[in-house]
């Protein structure tokens, strides 16, 4: 890799975060907009590529770490948040970004999603939500609407989709936003604020699958999305945030639904992390005094 994380002298730009490998997504995929917005958001923080690690699961959108110039981990299907939690606690001086899709995060990874949210660990979780399984060529997902016809529901889904934003707010997330891949500038701002937010930040993104989802298309969202920022919504008001999260119809809100800056992140509450990253410690041995004190417990 040519721009392999070498220290960059001038303030980084979005270009510095551009990876060497061209994304293998279908031409016109919503994920391109998400990647572009993320490169812009990372650059805006003023941090350098090696200070970030992007961690994903499995799925079309989970290929993203290969296409961005940061450290990366492409983990197992549904496990990105668990790996990312370990990574963040091991080196909390890094900025951890987690990317994936709705099947990865809300389906197979659902348990980790709930518990990572409630822990309020400082990381940004971007879910490229296309309401379908793309990489497995078109089955129903946890966010597919009732009645949606897919390869696994040829007569229409008879299951209620889950509401990731309401779920996150009620589970204790401290930053909950939704963006649209068709508006990268707005999306990028939501991501930038999510990176700078101290605690768990969910950025759910409408990122249409142009190949397998003929319902939730770019046109579908373009007609419906309206920005909370223009509606006078107060993101510190949890009740209002929940009300907005429940809206789905001719109008679908995007923007920052909820933010709580008063809660400590997990890392702030852990005394063990207060003198630097545990993964960067070089003096690992137990001291004689520590050993003696352990032996005393056993005597």
């Amino acid at each position, binding site marked *: 890799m040519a721009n392999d994380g070498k220290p960059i002298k001038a303030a980084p730009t979005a270009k510095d975060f551009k990876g060497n490998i061209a994304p293998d997504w279908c031409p016109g995929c919503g994920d391109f907009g998400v990647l572009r917005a993320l490169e812009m958001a990372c650059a805006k923080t003023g941090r350098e590529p090696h200070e970030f690690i992007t961690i994903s699961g499995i799925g079309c959108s989970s290929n993203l770490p290969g296409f961005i110039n940061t450290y990366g981990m492409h983990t197992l299907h549904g496990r990105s948040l668990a790996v990312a939690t370990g990574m963040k*606690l*091991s080196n909390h001086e*890094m900025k951890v970004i987690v990317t994936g899709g709705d099947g990865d995060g809300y389906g197979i990874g659902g348990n980790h999603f709930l*518990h990572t949210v409630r822990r309020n660990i400082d990381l940004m979780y971007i879910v490229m939500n296309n309401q379908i399984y793309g990489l497995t060529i078109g089955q129903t997902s946890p966010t597919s609407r009732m009645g949606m016809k897919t390869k696994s529901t040829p007569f229409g889904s008879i299951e209620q989709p889950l509401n990731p934003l309401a779920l996150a707010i009620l589970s204790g997330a401290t930053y909950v936003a939704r963006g649209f891949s068709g508006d990268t500038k707005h999306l990028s701002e939501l991501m930038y604020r999510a990176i700078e937010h101290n605690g768990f930040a969910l950025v759910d993104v409408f990122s249409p699958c142009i190949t397998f989802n003929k319902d939730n298309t770019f046109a579908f969202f373009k007609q419906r999305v309206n920005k909370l920022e223009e509606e006078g919504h107060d993101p510190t008001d949890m009740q209002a945030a929940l009300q907005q999260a429940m809206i789905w119809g001719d109008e679908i809100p995007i923007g920052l639904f909820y933010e709580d800056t008063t809660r400590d992140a997990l890392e702030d509450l852990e005394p063990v992390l207060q003198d630097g990253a545990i993964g960067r410690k070089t003096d690992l*041995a*137990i001291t004689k005094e520590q050993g003696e004190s352990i032996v005393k417990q056993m005597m």
Partner: protein
Amino acid sequence: MGNYDFAIGMGGAPGQGIESSGPLLLRICARRGIYAFTYSAYQSLIRGGHTFLTMRLSSEPVANHGDKIDLVIALNQDAMDKHLQNVAPGGAILYNSDNTKPEGDVPEGVQLCPLSFKELSNNSRNRIMLNTLLLGAALNMLGAGLEQLENILTIQFQRKGQDVVDENVGIARAGFDHAAEHFTPFPTSLPMQDKPLAVTTGNDMMAMGGAAAGVKFYCAYPMSPSTGVLHWMATNARDLGIMVRQVEDEIGVANMAIGAAHGGARAMCATSGGGFALMTEAIGSAGMMEIPVVIINVQRGGPSTGLPTKTEQGDLWQLLGASQGDFPKIIVAPTSIVDGFTVIPELFNLVDKYQCPGMVLSDLTLSMGYTNFDPDHLKWDQEIDRGEIITEDNGSDENYQRFKITDSGISPRALPGTPGHVHVVATDDHDEDGVLISDEFTNPHKRRDIMEKRQRKMDGIMADLPAPTLTGPEDADITLIGWGSTDSLLDEAASLLRAEGYSTNHIHFRWLYPLDEEKVNAVLAKCKRGIIVEGNYTGQFARFLRGETGFNADGHIRKYDGEPFMPHHIVDGAKEIEAGKTELYIPYQEIVV
């Protein structure tokens, strides 16, 4: 064994106090320099059911619970009914005569020792003190003083006030005095040795081994019989700077540990068979992403939820086969409680060197067993070798490749956050750059190269691992072959067989995978009649050993009833096999809870 070898069994219902008075007695013995090994036969209940704790005390180091029980402390009728017949000739049984009495034949030469809790406690309603009363009586019969028990009770109850201290010390003394007056003491007194010992469990030892290895990240989901590791880690985390997390499930545990390991921390987790099953996909990912991590599996009886509170050596094939595809990995089985301390730092140095997952195969007998041991044997300044890691921008790696193809298969590992070394690690197969391009792997040559690079690490691992140990006469007629927790048991059985005129030695496997065929066969070649001893139904190790080396054992001793082997089980089995009566001997478990 040395000149003092004595076993006490304590039986009663959970909640009657065995779980505290057992360790209390061990602590008294430790202060007197008496070695001990304890096995607790218990059930998966918090209240109700039955518990039987066997404490073998010895003037020499001891690592199994032996063959006989000299003194039973029966806390209820159930314990009396179940264990009166287990008392050895010359032994005794202590019990509360208010509600417990012997029924049926009393074995010959067994002394009945009744005490009335009501009378001796002045009608105390504090039933838990029955333990203390019987313990006081036992100490008298063992020829020990009351001083240590008094000290410990005083420290234990100090915070509750002098009244409570006096009450407890008083009841211990009442038991002690009553025994002095009414019961015959054992002929050999509990020795007083110079060196005070420490009391520990297998789980605690492995946790301490982790701490000594420099583990800075530990996570787990509670699961018997592995939970003790979590408890030790949680208790000591802040003093030692260890991040400890309880995670939502074992899938999360393994993945979180891998994330922490990738960040640079030495990371460890522990579980039992069911939890391990959930971890297997992650273990393969550590193999693929070349991340060093240590996973402890404390075996209990399987399959499925199985026997949550019983022991087995039934997970070997689960570990051997954990995760799809081929990848380098290391499996080691500690051979004693204290070995748990040593094995962890050794394994960490190997997994760091070879950047692969390492698995520890313990079992309930070791992990939940208590032992008294000399704490001077704990080497706190363990050698810590992190292998080839890059933590700083060294300016020379213009074209850093995380998975660089090398002769050893080891590629220098840059920790995330290091300038100049940005890379991606992936669970999809990848080229030297770690670049994930799925389409590339229609490229069979790249796939072959990277597969061979990873697998070359196995050659190094095999060269680093020692051969199995052989103890006893080299040219013996009978060779007992075992693995993991049965080391001391087989040594003792071999020595008992030799005492009966059977020339016997013992080969023991601690490092289970990978096995170096040549090294192992050099040891096995000396076998005349090999008998493989293991705690499972299908002979998992026997099949594995045959597959790796072509070695066919002449006989097998197996146990899968949930209880650990006792030395005489092996002696009896070896004699039957030697006499040509059977090739497979399944010992009968005499002590039943």
